[in-house]
């Protein structure tokens, strides 16, 4: 069953045990704790075994968004939930250089 949902500006849908989350402007302007709360909402109420987050960024991101996503990746990893990230290649490179990739199972560069 595919379920399309919306929390604030955040789009996400669930398919079986997988959750797909997409973020784009103006989601990136949200405050740290607000964005965190929205993501938590997206994952509540069901057994999740995999989360995929796709960002529609322009090669850069506010640091607070990066911190929320990294924190989410770490939290999921500690619960044995795989978290994949799809970002622009520039962002992916910066994440690698700043040692932030270990929070994610896979980082896919999208054009």
């Amino acid at each position, binding site marked *: 069953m595919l379920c399309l949902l919306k929390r604030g500006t955040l789009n996400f849908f669930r398919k079986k045990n997988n959750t797909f989350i997409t973020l784009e402007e103006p989601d990136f302007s949200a405050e*740290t*704790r607000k964005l*965190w709360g929205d993501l938590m909402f997206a994952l509540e109420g069901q057994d999740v075994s995999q989360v995929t987050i796709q960002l529609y960024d322009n*090669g*850069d*991101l*506010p*640091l*607070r968004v*990066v*911190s*929320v996503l*990294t*924190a*989410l990746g*770490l*939290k999921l990893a500690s619960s044995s939930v795989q978290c994949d990230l799809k970002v622009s290649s*520039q*962002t992916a490179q*910066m*994440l690698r*250089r*700043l*040692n*932030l990739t*270990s*929070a994610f199972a896979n980082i896919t560069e999208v054009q």
Partner: protein
Amino acid sequence: MEINLKEVKESFITTTHDLLQRSEALLLEMERQVNPEHYTELLRAVHTIKGNAGIFELDSVIHLCHAFETFLEELRTAAVPLSTELIDTGLTVIDRIRSLVALVDDPQKMAAVQVQDVIAAMENRGKTGVAAKPVQTGNAPEKSEFDRLRAHTQKLRLPEKYLELARRNNHYLIFVVIDLGDQGNLSLSQLHAKFKALHKSGNLLSLGVLRKETITDNPAGPFMPYFLILHSEGRAEAVIEKLGLKILLFHYFWQPEHKPEAAAEPVHDGGRSADAQAKETHLKVHLDLLNSLIDITGEIVLTRNALVRRIEQSQDQGLAAFTKKLSYLVTDLQDKVMKTRLQALGTLFQRFPRLVRETAAATGKKANLHTVGGEIELDKAIIDEIADPLVHIIRNAVDHGLELPEVRAKNGKDEAGAVTLSAAMREGNIVISVEDDGGGLDYEQIRAIAVRKGLVSREAATEASEQEVSEYLFLPGFSTKAEITTISGRGVGMDVVRSNIKKLGGSVEIIGAPGKGSKVILNIPQTLSILTCLVVETGGARFVIPQQNILEVVTIEKEKLKTIQNKEAYELRSKLLPLVDTAALIDLKNENSSASLFVVLRTEKYHYGLTFERVLDTEEVVVKALPQFGQEQQVFSGAAIMGDGKIALILDAAGIGRHANLQATTTDRTIAQNRQLTELIEEQHLLFRFHNVLVAFKVVEIPRIESIDPKTVETIVDRQVVHYRNEVIPIIPLSFLGAAVEADKPEGSLIILQSAGRKYGLLASEIIDLLNQKIELRHDDNDRAEIDGFTIVDDQTVVVLNLARLMHMQMNQAGERKLLEAAP
């Protein structure tokens, strides 16, 4: 590599114990005078304990240490004098940490130990006693979360390569934590640019997320802690300012040694403090291992002694040479092994300022403790054994010795009494004394108490001298206190002290005069287990006398034997020396035997001669404790297994003095005075024969004289040397005397002389006597510089040597030889 957690834990306990001891001493010093360096050292000690506790996840220790650090930092910032209450709080914290560490193997019991009350007390004291609060860098989150994060990051262990890099470049090694979620509108690319610049400048070593500290669910906590490891020539503040980020916290994991101002910051020790490099030459070894080494060495010494005895009986010269070499090596081994267990007395002394403080507070007195000689080293086993006796004695000094402040003021003394704890080396022994400037010994009161408690009869007490009365203090059940307190009054003090010290082969004495304070003196051997002794024989039995008590061995001349008040004495150099018969000590008296020699023994209190039939040898013996039945005899301190496997009893010089009911050292002077021997001895000369020439030299202290086998004197290059106790000692040549060398009568005695820390030997054919008379010197300008002049003794001409000049010339010759050897 496998890590032995048990060893690490033991090392942690030992280190923590030392650090707490030092912290306690620092706190007590701070009560008198606050010095910024005290805070620095104290904070470093507490910080190290906290860091080390992190390895074992001892959360309560970590929390307590952390709160203590905060408390100390607040006090340091406020720069206020420390009240007694603040010091009390600090001491309570130290006690609590000590209790927690003692339970490190029992997590359940450890969890039961309360720390919150102490932490609350510190917070209250900090708030009430200090106005200023510490300033935190950046937007620190709520204190508890921040503290937790700080505690966690302080526990971290950085890779060795970073520490090495910082040390090599003499840079600060800085650990910085920022919150990625709290950097305003900063973008990922901006952060990347900042770190890229930092990387280019060569300061950045590592970065990443503090995974375990990502406190996403707690609105009060940092959202996304992220760390940077930097090394920098400058302090952290400068780097952080350049970085332009909000900082949560930072630590120094290494600080350059040449920047003392940096020491004010807490340092994560991790075994890498500034003096760590110096300590890398040291290795911690378990005491059990050292003890077993000492036991094995003791057995080797015994075997060596037995072997030497066997070889002496054989005529194999080659074997004898090997045995001699082996003997030197064993002595050297034993000496080195013994040294491994030596520890400075200062480690023990630093416990006592607190004891004095607390005893004084409990008894309403004022007292200051002064310590002297903390650098003197003693066998750790002995230090452990004397700790409790010293606690008793120091408590007594404050409780019984010192008067109340008002009484002292009335007597014209300073309100605060002085207790001096001192240690000194004397004749191979360690003398530890505890002296107070209190009311001294009230002999009448001591007499009355001893009679009232039924410890002695009224008649005996009335007749007893002051010397004997002071011995009542060592009777079981004796106490001058009318009421029992937690400090004293139960009468289980000095008798236990004496029995404990006696077990170590030592002695304890009390001296004092009314109104002039009292002094308790402990005389103890520096090492246990192996003693150098003189072996003597009397009544068919062998006895062993520790050499540290021996002044000289004298051949008895019948006409000098005196009987005074039914006691035997000997007139030795115009003084009467009381004599004790060794055989009579254990009823060995044999009608056919008669003592022909006596050994002059000196302890802190007694000076007497012990008679026996003959000297057998000097020997290093392994001390074995006496069985229960032997301990009743107070004249033996132990037993020794001799080279032939038989057992000999070790004589206790102080015990014999007491057993024979000898008077203190003043007595012989009194007798001498009664005999109106008022001649003052101004000079003392040792008279000896060098082949056919009589020689003398002036002595300040009687030198050591050894019988030697002339074969042990060797000629190396152009000088004679002799092996003496594993040292090669140069012989001062006396060829200038022009003596007619009698080849069939070689020199059999060696006089050991010391100058400027060096030993020299003088060979003598025969030692004749010590001259205690003024001698008239005839001196000619043409005489050699080494000769003071000539004199007549018993109608014979004696050459009087100038020993100082002789040794000086010997030293210069050695120096010239060295210069020649060093010349290209």
